[in-house]
């Protein structure tokens, strides 16, 4: 955390309200996001309890597993979820625009431009918290290797159709969520914490209710009070007034409300199976439905507040103007979405359990590159972020006090103007360090020449930095108009590069060196997780 964010947090403590941590919105927000509030069962891996899901804030769909340990009910839930999520995802897969991509021609080995399709927009799934992202990734893993009866008639416990496909999509969304700056599957707590600093620690910011209370406290109350209530207040029955955003539920809820409801449901189901004639069965079916309704009510009561909170967060974020580079990063998300769409249509197998060495190294490298890109772009988009970089000595802003025209030595002298900038920042400039400024969206580079003595009795403090502008001045002998700062201009130079270069190219997977396990060999069809008798609940 930089000192500027720390200061914002302290101001939040002192004023009782969250303080801005950004002046623009740094993440893309879809006009039609799909909000998903999942709940899970404690102690079981990947056993959903229910979910509230939909694109219409006034009409969420409630999905419930009345007995999470029952495999058939779990499959029914996942199948219903697939029926909501997949049509939403498919809706974005159809509308495409033409785009170009650089590819290596397999015959000549040259880089050529290829016409490809790019989806015009991409789906966006929003979950309440980071734990929700992890849970979707887990669900994706639990589903993608399942086989349907159609794929493999021999498979025991076949999955309903489309469930494996949902698994592959959730896996893709979950993987993409690890990419810095990606917005395919954001967590609301992360989005809010990026744009506001609260008067509590980052650990406590993981609580969506408390975070929102700091940012937008109810009338007449301080954020601190409201956050405390959101975190801890319980009703007469000992239940939290503001249920946690999940997917884990409060143990008091599990023990006092959910467990008895499950028991009633189990009993009603056993009674129904034991019914001897139609009339009795009818009665008992009624009891079973009532028991199921009760569980549905319980799940709704724990997910609805979170659902509303997520939409509240969306409202707050929409009020912020979008940062200039957000669209560009969203285009990368669209590429990622299009890429996976193509892999699914091409009939490729689901993502493997473990990546091979080259894929893993590529993923890591691209995440590092995206992280650097995100940091640079956020600083360029947002003066508040840039202020943090200036404080850290990674950028400086100031006024141009002098411009002297010089030329490069060589056959064709090019302009190399010397620009003197007065700044109060203290950049860490090494000898001949390169610095960059944004000129019409493109980086213009300059070289640090030296400090000038400001001993002329200038009333203003600060250092005088002399820079030599190196490029973006056109081909002529005289620099193009507007390409060189003029005296009196306010300029801002960064020590970091604005655009990220890709690293060294990695070998093809079949050329993986022995140090990294050698070539991965023939791709084998990953088998579904074995079904053990212990699994049958």
């Amino acid at each position: 955390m930089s000192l500027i964010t720390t200061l914002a947090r302290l101001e939040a403590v002192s004023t009782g309200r969250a303080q801005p941590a950004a002046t623009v919105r740094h993440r893309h927000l879809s006009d039609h996001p799909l909000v998903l509030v999942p709940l899970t069962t404690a102690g079981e891996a990947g056993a959903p309890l229910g979910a509230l899901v939909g694109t219409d804030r006034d009409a969420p769909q409630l999905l419930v597993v009345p007995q999470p340990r029952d495999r058939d009910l779990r499959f029914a839930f996942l199948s219903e979820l697939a029926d909501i999520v997949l049509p939403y995802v498919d809706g974005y897969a159809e509308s495409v625009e033409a785009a170009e991509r650089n590819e290596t021609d397999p015959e000549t080995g040259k880089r050529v431009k290829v016409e490809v399709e790019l989806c015009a927009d991409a789906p966006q799934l929003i979950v309440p918290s980071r734990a929700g992202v992890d849970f979707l990734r887990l669900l994706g893993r639990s589903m993608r290797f399942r086989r349907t009866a159609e794929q493999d008639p021999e498979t025991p416990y076949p999955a309903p159709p489309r469930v494996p496909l949902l698994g592959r999509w959730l896996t893709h969304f979950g993987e993409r969520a690890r990419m810095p700056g990606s917005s395919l599957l954001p967590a609301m707590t992360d989005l809010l914490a990026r744009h506001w600093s609260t008067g509590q620690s980052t650990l406590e910011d993981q609580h969506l209710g408390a975070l929102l209370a700091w940012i937008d406290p109810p009338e007449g109350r301080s954020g601190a009070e409201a956050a405390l209530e959101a975190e801890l207040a319980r009703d007469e029955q000992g239940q939290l007034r503001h249920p946690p955003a999940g997917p884990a539920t409060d143990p008091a809820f599990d023990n006092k409300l959910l467990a008895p409801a499950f028991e009633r449901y189990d009993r009603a189901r056993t009674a129904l199976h034991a019914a001897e004639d139609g009339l009795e069965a009818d009665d008992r079916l009624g009891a079973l439905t009532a028991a199921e309704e009760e569980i549905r009510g319980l799940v709704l009561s724990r997910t609805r507040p979170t659902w509303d909170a997520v939409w509240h967060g969306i409202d707050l974020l929409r009020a912020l103007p979008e940062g200039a580079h957000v669209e560009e990063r969203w285009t990368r998300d669209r590429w990622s979405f299009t890429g996976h769409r193509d892999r699914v249509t091409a009939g490729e197998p689901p993502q493997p359990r473990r990546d091979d060495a080259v894929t893993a190294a590529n993923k890591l490298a691209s995440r590092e590159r995206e992280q650097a890109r995100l940091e640079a772009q956020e600083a360029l988009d947002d003066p508040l972020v840039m202020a943090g970089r200036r404080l850290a000595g990674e950028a400086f802003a100031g006024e141009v006090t002098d411009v002297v025209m010089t030329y490069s030595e060589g056959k064709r002298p090019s302009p190399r103007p010397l620009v003197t900038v007065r700044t109060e920042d203290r950049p860490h400039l090494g000898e001949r360090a390169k610095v960059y400024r944004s000129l019409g969206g493109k980086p213009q580079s300059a070289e640090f020449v030296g400090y000038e003595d400001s001993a002329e009795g200038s009333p203003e403090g600060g250092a005088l930095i002399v820079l030599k502008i190196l490029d973006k001045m056109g081909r002529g002998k005289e620099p193009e108009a507007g390409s060189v700062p003029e005296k009196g201009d306010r300029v801002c130079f960064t020590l970091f590069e604005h655009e990220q270069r890709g690293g060294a190219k990695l070998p093809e997977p079949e050329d993986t060196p022995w140090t990294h396990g050698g070539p991965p060999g023939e791709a084998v069809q990953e088998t579904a997780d074995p079904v053990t008798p212990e699994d049958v609940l």
Partner: protein
Amino acid sequence: MPLPRTRGTALRQRLAELRGPEVPAKALDARALAALAANPGCKRRAILDGAGVNKTALASALGAPSAFGQSQFALTRGNAFEAKVKADGGAELLRLVHERLDRGAEPPAEAEVPDLTAIGPEGRTARTALALREATAGAWTLLDHPMLALDVAGSPAFLEPDAVVVHPDGSWTVVEIKSFPLLDGSADPSKVGAAARQAAVYVLALEEVAARLDPAPKVRHRVLLVCPKDFSNLPAASAVDIRKQRAVTARQLARLTRIEDIADTLPEGTCFAPDLPAAELTAAVESVPATYAPECLSACELAFHCRDRSRAEGAVTSLGRSVRAELGGLTTVEDVLAAARGETGDPDDPAVAALRRAAELRSEALGARPEVLRRRPETPEGPAEALGVSACR
């Protein structure tokens, strides 16, 4: 004539007084110890744990109840899994130990599972030590829920690992059984870390037992972590190297302020019995200093109480340890803000200078600094330009 009181019984007496008459002592488990070692500077936690005070009850009595609880679903599932792992005299468990840690040894065809039942924790500790001494050389022995004692800041803590295995070569291995899944060979790192810290405490306690034997058997520094495999409840195991956690925990346990020293600083008649009136309890708790940090929220039952206090004092640590580290000698919110506004503080102090610069840059970026405008009235651009808002584009 009363017997002369030794230092040990005097301390025990004193701790019993602190706990309150007729309040049974709460045993210090490995989880609490690992949490204590994570915040070794907290005297409040040290004395309360050392005296065996039930912190959950204390927190409720103080009006800041802890939020810890375990769902019965998780409990049932965890117990069922542990029972499954240890079924058939621990055959599956020993197979995993053999496969993961000791492939060179004889495969465990049959193992001894000594009976460890005894009365009271001391009795069980003695019984465990006996079973460890008598473990036959050249055979596998499984100790199911043994009891170990560890001296913590001057008072004994009794610990109960899930299992300890004696290898045919005489060395000992700690086994931790957890119910979080091992998914495609990897598990949640924070949970594995917690399990490793816990296991490190058991290893330290076992080493004390081993040191009393001649020749002293080796306590292995690779423990076996057993978790459900993927989405099933079949056991999967992984060897976890806990040398680092062991070293850290050993160092921090040694650093813990002696409990008797803390006890000596308390005013006469201090008592933490949860049935006392809240005001009296608060005063008693306040008489021991705490070092609250947000990490306490996930480890200590008293965290909400300490957080309230820390916030009321305006301590910057309540925003995180890293925040505190950044601000030099300034420890309260108001101090920092006053220094940032330029009202107090020495401008030559680097922390103060950095703060002022940060405050200046922040308000400049937020567009709330009229001085900037006033200083440069000749600027031809609009106000936003002059503020540097879009200068970076």
